[in-house]
């Protein structure tokens, strides 16, 4: 059964040349090409904490350094810390778990019932205190002698002793950067029109394009917003405080004392590992007693944009709790999916008959044409495709894939329907027109085709074969300049995809033949 969905076996070629499984690919409906995650631009839509789903606006998240205030990770093993509550007056500590979300109500009920059965005879008022504990490595805030807090969510971040110096340096360099940018932009965009419609973003840290994450539109806006003032006004310089105390350089470092390892006071168990140390870069504790809970990083929901035509390919819902998408152009919805169904025990000299299944995921009837690589080379129409095929054949392919029927192989595929659909009329109609050589099996949106694999040489270790499919896609027409006369003819085109199939090692036994194929 695991061979049914071996996703990494069948790969489609993206427009950038890399081969990926169909589930990882997007399809841009404007340029009618497959896109993968390396040829799309990411834009951060929504920032949220992965454990409590707290959703913050971008600017607020950035001021909080993209960390959650109530969720913490264990400094020892990096798993999420759980808040536990105990009673201060009980002789034997009663521990129960509360997550940061559930608050006091859930914890309170359990606590009452436990305290009534266990703590009999204790009349002193019990106060609940909280501590953080890791359920994987059993680290807790008590290990570092941190006092249990009487209220939830009152864990403070550690003070950064270098913060003052950092701020000084940041201010200084920010001023230099704004000055340089203004000078540079003034020279380049001396004739640009002032865009008053765009928000006048200041060149602060939150809206500058430091990491190339912003949309191209906003990027241009920031660049030109610096020159909104006329050149004469910008001449007056900001009162820059360019007198910054330089850091003290250290020229001599103490050599390592070898007797340190031999002395009795050295305890290996007390040292932190490098990963633990670098998880909190500002503090970098050397010994285990100085570890502190790490505030959890935010993750983001991203929308993806095609690099060529700048249209969105994937746009999620902005709320972290909703998993649907506003725009969901995955390649799976546009291109039929091919899977390996059967292959025999491999013989190195003869042609091996294999069976591939094609599943149509579209909501409409599709006609699929299949070509072998040689036929495309004979056709000689699409130079780019032929170049790609030749490259593939030379470096990667270890076998030749041939299809039965010499020419004009086209199969019709049923639209993707619910499995309990009983209308088999279309199905039967298609079955009449199927060639018995090519199509072995047909049921609703799924058909099985036969192909033949011949290994290139007997020293081949893994079998890689390729062929080409062609089908029709309906794209979105580009927006015309006059808003009144929007053309209503959708663009339809026949697109071709190169499919690379990895059948596995040559010594793999044959897959069991399905009863419907025999």
């Amino acid at each position, binding site marked *: 059964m695991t061979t049914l969905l071996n996703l990494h076996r069948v790969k489609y070629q993206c427009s950038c040349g890399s081969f990926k499984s169909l589930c990882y690919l997007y399809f841009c409906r404007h340029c009618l090409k497959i896109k993968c995650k390396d040829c799309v631009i990411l834009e951060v839509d929504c920032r949220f904490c992965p454990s409590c789903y707290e959703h913050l606006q971008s600017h607020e998240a950035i001021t909080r350094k993209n960390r959650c205030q109530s969720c913490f990770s264990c400094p*020892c093993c990096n798993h999420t810390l759980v808040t536990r509550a105990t009673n201060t007056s009980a002789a034997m500590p009663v521990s129960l778990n509360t997550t940061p979300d559930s608050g006091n109500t859930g914890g309170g009920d359990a606590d009452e019932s436990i305290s009534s059965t266990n703590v009999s005879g204790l009349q002193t008022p019990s106060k609940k205190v909280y501590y953080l504990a890791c359920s994987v*490595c*059993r*680290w807790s805030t008590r290990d570092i002698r941190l006092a249990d807090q009487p209220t939830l969510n009152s864990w403070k971040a550690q003070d950064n002793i270098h913060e003052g110096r950092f701020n000084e340096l940041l201010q200084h360099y920010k001023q230099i950067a704004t000055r340089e940018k203004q000078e540079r932009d003034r020279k380049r965009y001396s004739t640009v029109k002032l865009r008053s419609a765009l928000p006048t973003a200041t060149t602060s840290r939150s809206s500058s394009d430091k990491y190339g994450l912003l949309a191209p539109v906003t990027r241009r806006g920031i660049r030109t917003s610096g020159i909104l003032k006329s050149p004469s006004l910008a001449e007056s310089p900001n009162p820059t405080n360019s007198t910054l105390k330089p850091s003290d350089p250290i020229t001599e470092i103490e050599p390592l004392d070898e007797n340190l390892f031999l002395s009795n006071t050295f305890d290996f168990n007390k040292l932190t590992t490098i990963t633990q140390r670098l998880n909190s870069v500002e503090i970098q504790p050397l010994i285990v007693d100085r570890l502190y809970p790490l505030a959890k990083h935010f993750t983001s929901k991203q929308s993806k944009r095609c690099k060529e035509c700048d249209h969105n390919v994937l746009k999620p819902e902005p709320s972290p709790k909703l998993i649907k998408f506003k725009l969901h152009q995955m390649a799976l919805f546009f291109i039929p999916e091919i899977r390996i169904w059967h292959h025999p025990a491999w013989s190195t000299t003869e042609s091996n008959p294999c069976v591939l299944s094609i599943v149509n995921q579209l909501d409409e009837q599709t006609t699929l044409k299949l070509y072998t690589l040689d036929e495309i080379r004979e056709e000689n129409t699409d130079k780019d495709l032929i170049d790609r095929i030749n490259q593939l054949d030379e470096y990667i392919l270890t076998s030749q894939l041939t299809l039965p029927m010499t020419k004009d192989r086209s199969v019709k595929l049923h639209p993707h329907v619910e499995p309990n659909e009983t209308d088999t009329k279309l199905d039967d109609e298609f079955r009449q027109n199927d060639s018995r050589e090519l199509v072995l099996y047909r049921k609703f949106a799924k058909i099985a085709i036969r192909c033949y694999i011949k290994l290139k040489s007997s020293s081949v270790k893994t079998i890689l074969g390729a062929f080409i499919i062609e089908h029709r896609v309906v794209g979105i027409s580009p927006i015309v300049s006059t808003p009144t006369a929007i053309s209503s003819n959708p663009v339809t085109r026949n697109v071709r995809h190169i499919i690379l199939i990895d059948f596995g090692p040559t010594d793999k036994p044959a897959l069991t033949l399905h009863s419907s194929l025999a």
Partner: protein
Amino acid sequence: MCPAINSSYQVTIAPGAYVCEERLQLVGEISIGSKTIIHPGVSIIAEAGPIFIGDGNLIEEQCVIANRFPPGVDKDQMNQVVMIIGNNNVFEVGSQCEALKVGDNNILECKAQVGRSVTLTSGCVIGAKCSLTTDEVLPENTVVFGSDHQRRTMPDRPAFQTHQLDFLARILPTSHYVLKHGTKSHTQPAT
């Protein structure tokens, strides 16, 4: 319902201990201390010598506590080697313990495996799905965790499970067949 009949065993159960009969597999000479609770589906195999289990232990489902012969030895020539398990240990579901000496207050988490040459002192925690097959004495309060078997030392031993033990001691006899305390033995019929 009864323990497996195709093996010979002799088990001594102290008063206060509850041993569930269901799917219980006993081999050899076994002694179980008071207040120990053994869940259904446990195998205690004292092949190479007797096993002495202390007080207040909690042995959960599908655990295997085995005192086996080392591989490749002549079984008739071996002397009896005693396996001692201390007090207040917790063997969570699916764990396997073949260590000859287990101290007090240790916790073997789910599907943990401890080999014969390891000695668990006290307060040790072997994390879920970790397996220890080294030849060593684990220092006190050591925690082994993670898929790469990282280790760290806790400042104090893990908490008692007294609440769980009390609860089980009340509930278990009401819904399971429990072996009575005393000595129960069964010899395999000679074939």
